[in-house]
């Protein structure tokens, strides 16, 4: 099962390596991991997308909680939540592609954020599946480069993770 785990940790040097080290040393999967400080600069907020049986996920949560720098851990997939991921795709924008790419970006509610003679760079935000769908919808030869951030997640409504 796919799980989205959200955590708050002290914004200290090496904090990220404690988390990534835990996953590699115990053989847990990481599909994606995003991290940055937020409104409180002393904390880093991390979203980890992982896969595992219920037992494995339980262990992951417990092991994360055990790390001394971690303040809070929440499995977002335990309840309603929202996930968003940002992708930047550089595509060919010559000949027929110039119109086509603009149209595709519009359909997927993407934005063209850089225009050059032969390329567009499209910014697209959404759940991972939407980004997958966009990639699948494009002619493969038109994709020059793509970069994705991995998912960031947050609980819906009153579900708040804060200290």
């Amino acid at each position, binding site marked *: 099962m796919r799980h989205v785990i959200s955590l708050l940790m002290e914004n200290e040097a*090496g904090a990220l390596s404690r988390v990534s080290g835990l996953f590699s040393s115990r053989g847990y999967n990481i599909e994606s991991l995003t991290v940055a400080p937020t409104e409180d600069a002393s904390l880093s907020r991390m979203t980890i997308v992982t896969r595992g049986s219920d*037992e494995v996920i339980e262990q992951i949560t417990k092991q994360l909680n055990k790390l001394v720098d971690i303040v809070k851990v929440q499995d977002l997939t335990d309840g309603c939540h929202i996930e968003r991921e940002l992708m930047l795709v550089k595509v060919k924008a010559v000949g027929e592609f110039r119109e086509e790419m603009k149209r595709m970006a519009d359909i997927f509610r993407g934005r063209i954020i850089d225009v050059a003679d032969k390329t567009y760079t499209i910014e697209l935000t959404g759940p991972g599946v939407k980004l997958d769908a966009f990639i699948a919808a494009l002619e493969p030869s038109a994709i020059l480069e793509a970069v994705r951030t991995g998912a960031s997640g947050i609980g819906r409504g009153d579900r708040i993770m804060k200290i």
Partner: protein
Amino acid sequence: MADTELTGAEIVVRCLAAEGVEHVFGYPGGAVLDIYDAIYKQDKFKHILVRHEQAAVHAADAYSRSTGKVGVALVTSGPGATNAVTGIATAYMDSIPLVVITGQVPTAAIGMDAFQEVDTVGITRPCVKHNFLVKDVKDLADTLKKAFYIASTGRPGPVVIDIPKDVTQHRCAFHYPESIAMRSYNPTSKGHAGQIKRAAQMLLEAKRPVIYSGGGVILANAAEQLTELARQLGFPVTSTLMGLGGYPAPDPLFLGMLGMHGTIEANMAMQHCDVLLAVGARFDDRVIGNPKHFQKEARKIIHIDVDPSSISKRVKVDVPIVGDVGNVLAEFAKLTQAADHGPDPEALKAWRAQIELWRAQDCMKYDHNAAVIKPQFVIEKLYEITGGDAFVTSDVGQHQMWAAQYYKFAKPRRWINSGGLGTMGFGLPAAMGVQMAHPGAPVACITGEGSIQMNIQELATCKQSDLPIKIVLLNNGYLGMVRQWQEFFYEERYSESYVASLPDFVKLAEAYGHVGMRIDKPEDVEPALRRAFGEYKDRLVFMNFLTDPRENVYPMIPAGKGLSEMILI
């Protein structure tokens, strides 16, 4: 505390003194010269100079195991730190509270591949409870406070503090905090009241109960609470290798050690019980073997542990209780005592009768009339002569198992061994730490000729620090446990397990200034031990017992098998 300006090195020393540290085990080097200079000028604690950094950490570790206090080791950067890693990992696997201070190259040199530079925080990260790199002298005192707090609370463990040389030279006002609060670290100590009630009810209804106690009982100083509860309920108790001494071994309710080399009665009771109370133990592979085989039998499991991640890791449990095991056991005793009925006496009687049938198979028997020295016999004699009250350290291998099986530990913190990591070379430095903590107490190091040679240089430390340890070498000329596995599972292909070219241990001991003895006849075992603990009480005595090279440790559960699949003698 006064707000005087001190150097980082002086701050380190003042913090250790403020923590009540009496002994620091270490080895100097370039990056820690300022700290050593500050040590030279103080008289609050004693520094014990070892001969290899690994030994410093093992000694500090065993110091802690035998006292319950936080052990402290001090090493230099680079090779000092890497040599310490085995010791740190050993302490981590057995949850021993340690503060290990490592020197580091000056902050400006970090990342420059400087002389004796290594990424200590990176290297030790997977084998510490937590670690710190202190880049500013102003953070030093708080970091030391945090280190002692983290090491000794919750599930204990080693904490490394890496201090660059310039930080030990910079000055700042010194203030050592009385206490420290960390928003990210709040270990649970009190168990959930509802769960405790549910568990107590389960205990009262048990018909075939077993208490399975582990190292957590020792670490939490909960031996008394465990003993009280077991006796009150009349429940049999088995201990893991790490839990020995948590319940008095000579007591009839005690089933002996369980696991790979556990007794029949312990393993069978564990497999066939209907309610299992696991206390500070973690169902590891050497204890229950194959978890699938273990779970074939239906039983209710109550698991108390201070570390939530130890619960339902290898085995699903019915009633998890996170908290200090001493607190929870005391709560149990209160509830079961207040209950209107105890456990069904008829059922308990029948269960104990079944256990006696298993016990009657006498799985620990061995040949008492052999012409060669049986290793088990040496341990039994050691037990007799020390009145069962010595501190016993061990290395890793067959001798460790025989020590665990035949020395009947009646008190906690007397049995000091590397259970989790299984570190050969642990025994002698461990004995040093124990002897430092308990001057005048009998300390025996049970070892093998393979293990002892992994830290034999520490005989010099013992001389310098005047440590009258009694080394009991069970010398069978083989890496015995390797040889045993090769005999059982590799069709007797003894690949590299014969240790040829052993030194003359008597001369070696004498060369280091100690007493050496060579014992090769069963009738000489007792007199040798008596002399060692009598006439040579104040000397280190190295007893080289030439034992039966073909002796194996029984019973044995082959790796991957279940508790009831023991190989018996």
